[in-house]
Structure formats: C-alpha cells, structure tokens
C-alpha cells in the first residue's frame, strides 16, 4: 500500500523498531555487570515489499526477533577450563594448608627437633652418668614426639575438614543440576512459540558453568534445545528436564564413596579416579589419595624411627636396673605365637636369645639366657622365664593386660637385659625408649620418663658388670642419626626431607597448574566477552544510532502530516 498512509505506516513501524532498539540497548546497559549475561541485539529486517507499477515497493522495517550474541564452542571450552582451574584452586589451597604443617622454612620444625634429639644422645654419650643430659634427652624426645603427633593429627584434621566440604559441595551440585533441568523445562515451554528465551538460556549457561566448577562434566545439546549433562563415565546428571542427585558415604576404610542416585532408586558408586576437574574432584582426591600418601610416609618414618631406636635401646642398660618392668605393647591373645599376636613390631621377632642379668644389692649375682622363637606364645615365654634353672629363682614373669610383666622376687634383687638378638624386647616394648608404632602414637616410654636413670646409655658386660661411665649404647644410639633406614637407605633426616620436598613439589605443581589454567581461563573469558560481553561505548553508539533513527522516523510522520495538509489545502 503506497501513498501517504503508507508513509505513516513505515514511520510507525520504524518508530516501534527503533524504540525496541533503545529498549534492548537499555537492557544491555543494565546488564553490563550481570554474570553470564550475553548481550542482545534487535534483528531488524526489511518488511515485505508490495508490488507496484514500478516494481516491488519496500514497506519499511520489521523486527525479526531479539538475538543473543553467544558462541557455544568458546563457552564449552571456557567451562571445561574453568572446571580444571577450580580443581587446581581447591587442590592448591588444600596442599598449601598441609604444607603449612610441614613448614620447615621456620625454625623449630621437625627437622630441627630430629637434629636436637640426636644431639642429646651425643651429649649423653659425652657424659653418660649426667642427670642433666638424661633430662634434656627426655624433654627433647617429648618435643619430637609431640611434633610427630601434631603433624599426624593435623593431617587427620585436614582430611576431616575436607570431608566437611564434600557434603555442601555435593548439595550445591544437586541444586545446580536441578536448576538446569528446571530451566530446560522453562526454555522448552517459552520457546514453543518459536521465540528465543535469551535470558533463560543465559541463566542455564551460568548454572552449567557453576556446575562445571564443582565437578567436571560433559554436556550435549540436543536439536530441540534440551541439554544433557553427564559425568566423565557417562552417567547422566541432567537429561532433558530430569536431573539425578549425587550423594556420598564414608566407607569403613575412611574413604569417601561418591554415589549417583539414578532413576527408580538405582545407585552406583562413582570411582574417584574417573573424575577430572571441579572442586569436588580435588576435595576427594586430596582427601583420599594425596594426604593418605603423606600420612603413610610420616607413619612409616615414625615406625622405622621407633624400631631403630628401641632396637638399640633394648640392648643397653641404664644407671639402675629394673625391679619390675611391664611391656608397652600388648598381644591380642597370649596363646597366639608372638609373631602373629597383633604386635606392631611382631614381624621383627627372630629366633635368638634374650640375656638377663641379675644383681643383688647392686652386685652381679647371676645371669641366664632365654631362647626365643617367633612361634612361641607370650604364655610360653612367661613359662620359660619362670622355669629357667637360673632366672626362675629370682624372677617372676606374668601376663598383665596382655603384656609381659617381669618382677624381681626379692626387694634386694634387680635385673637388666644384657643383649637380645631375637627382638622380643622391641616387640613387647620392654627396655625400650619409645612407645607407639606410628606418627600419631609415638611417645616416650613412661618407665624411662619417670626414671631417667633407665635411659640405656651403657651395656652389660659379659661378666655381668655395668658401669655409670659406659657410653657404648648411647654412642650406638647417636650413630643411628647417620644410619640408613628403610628400603631406600636414607637417614631419618633424609627421609623426612624427602617427604617435605615431595609435599612442597606437589603444592608447587598445583599452584603452577592453577596459574596456568587461570591464564587460560582469562584468555577464554576475554574471547567469550569479545562475543557476548557488553561494551558501554558500543551501547552508547547504538543508543545514539537508535535515537537518531527514531527522530528521523518521527520526522517522517511530520512529513506525512505536511503532505496531508498540502493535499487538504487544495480544497480551500
């Protein structure tokens, strides 16, 4: 329809279109800081031309729709990298936390305490009868035990606090998947009439990117615009308008099982190893794989340390002998062979001889040897002491709280251990320096702590003599500082340093990965923003553009009006 009314029509459509342009520009400006927002623009097309004698005649502008500027490929890549970034951020934070427990860059760390412990043994060797040296050794040993204990405890605490994060994280994942399914439903409904639900789709993308930060997922968009989200092993979290929850449980071995709750009450345990990306992955892997590794290494170190020190200590004799002694390691059953009775160092027992020396009023009286075999039970050992032709007359052995107890029969009698090549003393915790078997349980033997004179600096001679100035055992104990222990032949200090170094390297690596992925994410974010981000200058330009077009369209109305007036004036 040509003619003046056609002009007015064109003007009306133009006014409406440009006004819409201003509105969309306004929406863009308003959402410049909205997370996940993709800028929108009005898609203007020419309206259908009408035939005229001069050919098809344009009838103005038509609004085709409102489009959002969105690149699904860049966004998918950004989500994937964000997922990894989030994993390394969480991992790095946790490792950095663990690293602070082993922060040996400050003085007073375990490394220093280990040095001090061996220094005290050297001091004791320099002055084996010195009470001060014995006290100093015990105090430093306590500090060392405490350092081992607290590090072990902190690792346990760290695992606990990671576990506390697992629940809320899984809950958040479930909320996001439910929201994605809900948004999918809304999008499908909204778009049923063929119009794009731009803001809903932005929200869906935002939920997806938040989900990806929590757990690494793969997504697939179907032809009808519905979204499927699945775990790396293919189990779906969101399928169209349905979502499936995750839950967890702590196994008896203190690891976390991640459980997928499928349709109809089916469940499936998701192995932690298949997860990649997302903070949940980092939480689970750090808790159940990384930290246990260091726990085990620390425990092994403490175990080797206790064994080596106790083994040497049990060969020696203090300034005073025992009038009674009770083992620190109880067996599970006094009838079982000692090598299989749950003793932490039971595997060390070999066939050998335990030599016991008896003194009366401080003078050597008699000595006897007890044959030990790993197949003997604790009860057998008690019997062989009590029925020993020599020792049986002076000593009474018994089982108390499942541990070996030996008492001298007379108050004037005392006894000492003059060498044990069977390791039975180490295994039962008799004449030992430390108790416990791992980092958390390491402690100084209460017998020694109460009576520092029982610190075995010397040794009993073949003739039963022992002297206050004897430092042979203290020298041997001090020499353990340089002795290779464990399968790798490292010293205690070396082994601990290796632990610290590998922990430092792991934390450093996580930090490095975090920085790397941060860079990648920054770059991809810039790429995404290049497509979807709002540029205020651009919007200002558009605003002016639409405003001017609107003004021009309004002028068109004025022109049409003038045309009408001119035409009407002809009649006068």
């Amino acid at each position, binding site marked *: 329809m040509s003619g003046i009314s056609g002009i007015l029509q064109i003007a009306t459509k133009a006014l409406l279109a440009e006004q819409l342009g201003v509105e969309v520009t306004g929406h863009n400006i308003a959402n*410049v*800081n909205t997370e996940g927002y993709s800028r929108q623009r009005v898609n203007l097309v020419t309206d259908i031309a009408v035939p005229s004698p001069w050919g098809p005649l344009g009838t103005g502008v038509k609004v085709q729709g409102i489009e959002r500027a969105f690149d699904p490929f860049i966004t998918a890549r950004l989500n994937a990298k964000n997922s990894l970034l989030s994993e390394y951020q969480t991992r790095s934070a946790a490792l*950095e936390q663990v*690293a602070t427990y082993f*922060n*040996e*860059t400050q003085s007073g760390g375990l*490394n*220093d305490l*280990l*040095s*001090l412990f*061996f*220094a005290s043994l*050297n*001091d004791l*060797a*320099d*002055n084996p*009868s*010195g009470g001060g040296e014995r006290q100093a050794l015990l105090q430093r040993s306590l500090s060392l035990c405490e350092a081992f204990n607290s590090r072990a405890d902190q690792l346990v605490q760290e695992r606990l606090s990671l576990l506390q994060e697992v629940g809320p994280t899984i809950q958040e994942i479930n909320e996001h998947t439910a929201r994605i399914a809900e948004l999918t439903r809304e999008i499908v409904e909204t778009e049923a009439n063929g119009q794009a639900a731009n803001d809903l789709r932005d929200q869906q993308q935002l939920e997806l990117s938040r989900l990806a930060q929590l757990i690494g997922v793969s997504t697939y968009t179907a032809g009808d615009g519905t979204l499927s989200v699945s775990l790396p092993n293919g189990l779906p979290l969101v399928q169209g308008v349905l979502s499936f929850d995750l839950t967890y449980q702590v196994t008896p071995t203190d690891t976390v099982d991640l459980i997928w709750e499928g349709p109809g009450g089916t469940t499936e345990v998701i192995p932690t190893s298949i997860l990649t990306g997302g903070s949940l992955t980092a939480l689970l892997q750090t808790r159940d794989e990384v930290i246990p590794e260091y726990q085990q290494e620390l425990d092994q170190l403490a175990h080797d340390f206790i064994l080596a020190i106790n083994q040497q200590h049990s060969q020696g004799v203090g300034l005073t002998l025992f009038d009674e002694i009770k083992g620190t390691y109880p067996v599970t059953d006094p009838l079982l062979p000692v090598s299989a009775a749950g003793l932490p160092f039971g595997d060390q027992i070999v066939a050998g001889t335990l030599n016991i020396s008896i003194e009366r009023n401080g003078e050597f009286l008699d000595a006897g040897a007890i044959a030990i075999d790993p197949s003997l039970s604790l009860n057998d050992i008690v019997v062989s002491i009590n029925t020993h032709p020599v020792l049986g007359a002076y000593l009474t052995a018994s089982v108390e709280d499942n541990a070996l107890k030996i008492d001298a029969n007379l108050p004037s009698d005392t006894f000492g251990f003059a060498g044990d090549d069977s390791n039975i003393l180490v295994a039962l915790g008799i004449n030992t320096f430390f108790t416990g078997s791992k980092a958390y349980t390491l402690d100084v033997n209460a017998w020694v702590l109460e009576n520092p004179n029982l610190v075995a600096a010397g040794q009993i001679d073949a003739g039963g*003599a022992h*002297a*206050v*100035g*004897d*430092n*042979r055992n203290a*020298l041997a104990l001090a*020499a353990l*500082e*340089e002795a290779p222990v464990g399968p790798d032949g490292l010293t205690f*200090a*070396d082994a601990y*340093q*290796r632990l*610290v*170094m*590998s*922990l*430092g*390297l792991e*934390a*450093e690596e996580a*930090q490095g990965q975090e920085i790397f992925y*941060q860079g990648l994410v*920054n770059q991809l*974010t*810039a790429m995404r*923003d*290049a*497509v979807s*981000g*709002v*540029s*205020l200058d*651009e919007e*200002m*330009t558009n605003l*002016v553009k639409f405003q001017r077009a609107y003004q021009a369209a309004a002028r068109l109305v004025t022109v049409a009006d003038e045309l009408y007036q001119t035409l009407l004036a002809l009649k006068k």
Partner: protein
Amino acid sequence: MRVTMPTIFTSIQSNLERLAGDLQRVNASIASGQKYQSISDSPVDVGAILGLTTEENQTLQYDRNLETGKTWLSMTLSSLQDITDIVRVSMALANQMATGTYNASQRQAAAEQIQQYMEEIMQVGNTEIGGKHILAGFRTDTAPFVEGDWQVQPPVMHLNSGSTGTAVSGGVYTGTASRSYLVEMVSGGGTGVGTYRFSVNGGQSWTAPAVIPAGPVALGDGVEVTLGGTWVAGDRFSIPVYQPITYQGDSHNFEIALGADSRMVINEVGSAAVGGDQGDLDLFQMLAQMKSSLEANDPAEVGVSLEKLGSYQAHITSILAKLGASLDRVAIKEEVYATLKNELTRQISDRGDTDLVEAANLLKTKEIAYQAALLSSSKAMGMSLMDYL
C-alpha cells in the same frame, strides 16, 4: 577483537592482584630475611636447606663432642705428666740410694719420701672431672686407685754361696705403718742349730740372736716367717709389709663420636697407664718394692727398682705421646669443623637468606610496576564515550 567492559575491568583487577601479590612476597622476604616463606615456594631449595641445616647441627654437635674430648684428653695428659714428674724425682732418689754412700737411717727417710710420692700419685690418679674419675674406665663413679689390706710380702732373699735356706713369710699384720723386717743369720745351720736376729729399722738395731725354731718365728705385729733348709752365716732376707694399691676401675675405653663413622678414645685406663694391677708395669708395685728395699737398707734391690722405673718411664712416655697425638687430632678436627661450619652457614645463607640489595631492587621495580598499573588502569577506567556526548 571486541574489547568489552568486563574484559577491561577483569584484566585490571587480575593484574593489580598479581602485582600486589608480588609486592607482598618481596616485602615478606625482606621483613623476615628469608627468601622462602613456605615449602612450596621452592621445594628443591627448601629441601637442600633442610639437608644443610641437619649437617650444620651435626657439625655443631661433633664440635661439642670434641670439647668433651679435649677436656678429658688434656686432664688425662696433665695428670699423667704430673705422675711422670714424680717418677722422675723417684728415679733420682733411687739413683742416689742405690749407691753405698748412704746409711740405713738415710734410706729410711728416703722410704718415707717414696711413701709420700705414692700417695701423691694415687691422688693424681684419682683425678675427677665433674665428679667423674677419668682413669677408671667406665667406672667413673669409683676412685680407680685405693689402698688394699695390709699384706705380708714374700721374702726378698740374699743368700751366701752354699746356703740352702728357705723362708716363707706369713701372718696377718696388725701394725699401722708399712715396714720391712730384715732377718740375718748370725751363725749357719738348720733348724735347732743356726741362729738368727732381725731388725725393723733396716739394721740400725737388732734383736738378740735366737736359735732357728721348728715352727714359725714371730717377727712382731703378727708377721711370721718359717725358716727351713741349712743357712750360712751372713744370709739375709727382708720381708716387706705394705698396703698394695689396687685398681678399682675397668678396662673399657671411653669413646666420643667425631663423625658419622669416626670415633676417638679419650681416656686412659688407669691400670695400664699407672698400675694397681700387680702387673709388670705397675708403678705402685714398683714404688712399694723400692720403698721396702729402702726400708730394708738394700741398695742392690733399690737398683733393681730403678731399672723397673726406667721401663715404666718409657711406657708412660709413649702414652703421653699418644695423648698428645690425640689432642692434635682434636685440634685438627676442630679446625675442620670450624671451616665446615662456616661453609655450611654460607651455603644456607646463600640459598635461604634474602639478598637485601636484590630484594630492595626488586621491591622498587614492583612498586614502579604497581604504580604504572594503577595509573594506566585509572586512565582506562576513566575513558567513556559518555564524556563526549
């Protein structure tokens, strides 16, 4: 590429954050004096520093052990030197007394002097460091040399040719001072025939001659002698009575650790160095015998003792030389450890301590970078088309 608002502001934010982080790190390293604040800052360096620190602590400990060694060795050395001096004086005295120009009373006086020397040696031998007897082996709580019970020694015989006389000493001495009983045959013959007399002051005064009885002869204070065989007039023998000094320590060597596999003996066992074990080189026995010979006014036996003292002197000289060598070794080790300590301190410092010049420079650089970033950021943030519309 489209540069949008979020891009500009995100990059400004992350750049400023990074620069602030850098600044903080440099500042912390200057404030604490340590290059690394956490083990993840540089695990390899931190590990190396830990290793070096352990080594440094060990070196300090070995150095402390050396102090103990030095104290023991020098105390032992000075004690044994004192003893050597006394031995030398004793030898000079023995040298004089072995000649015939001195009479019995002079020899008695010399015997007194030897007694004092013995007591002096015992005192020196019982030297303590911090309540520990250094010459007692491991039995540091026991004085190594003590006087035993009175003992009547076997007779020292001087028989003339043709004599078959035998004497067996016995009895329990009840006196309080050491002495020698000198017995002389006045007329020859066996039991019931020969006559004897005895003296308790080296022959200055004698008892009246008596016939040799069948049983034991009481010499006084519980000391007895049983005479047998056929004597020749002029036969002499002496029976020394003294408290032998015995060694109470054990024969263990006291060692200290000088390094991973290196130990050093820092004591001398009293029985080997001084005596008390009634062995060949027992200084106390030599002196006791010499004293008895002097009491018995027996220059020939004094000469024998002099010879023995000579061999003891050679023995202790070699011990002194060994102690001196050990002290030398301690001094060398001290030197080595001092150098090592310096070197380790330097290495630890090189790796772990902040290089202040470098750090201050870096701080300045970061500061300038931060300021530049602030300036350019505020410029970028301030730019808007709105200012021109």
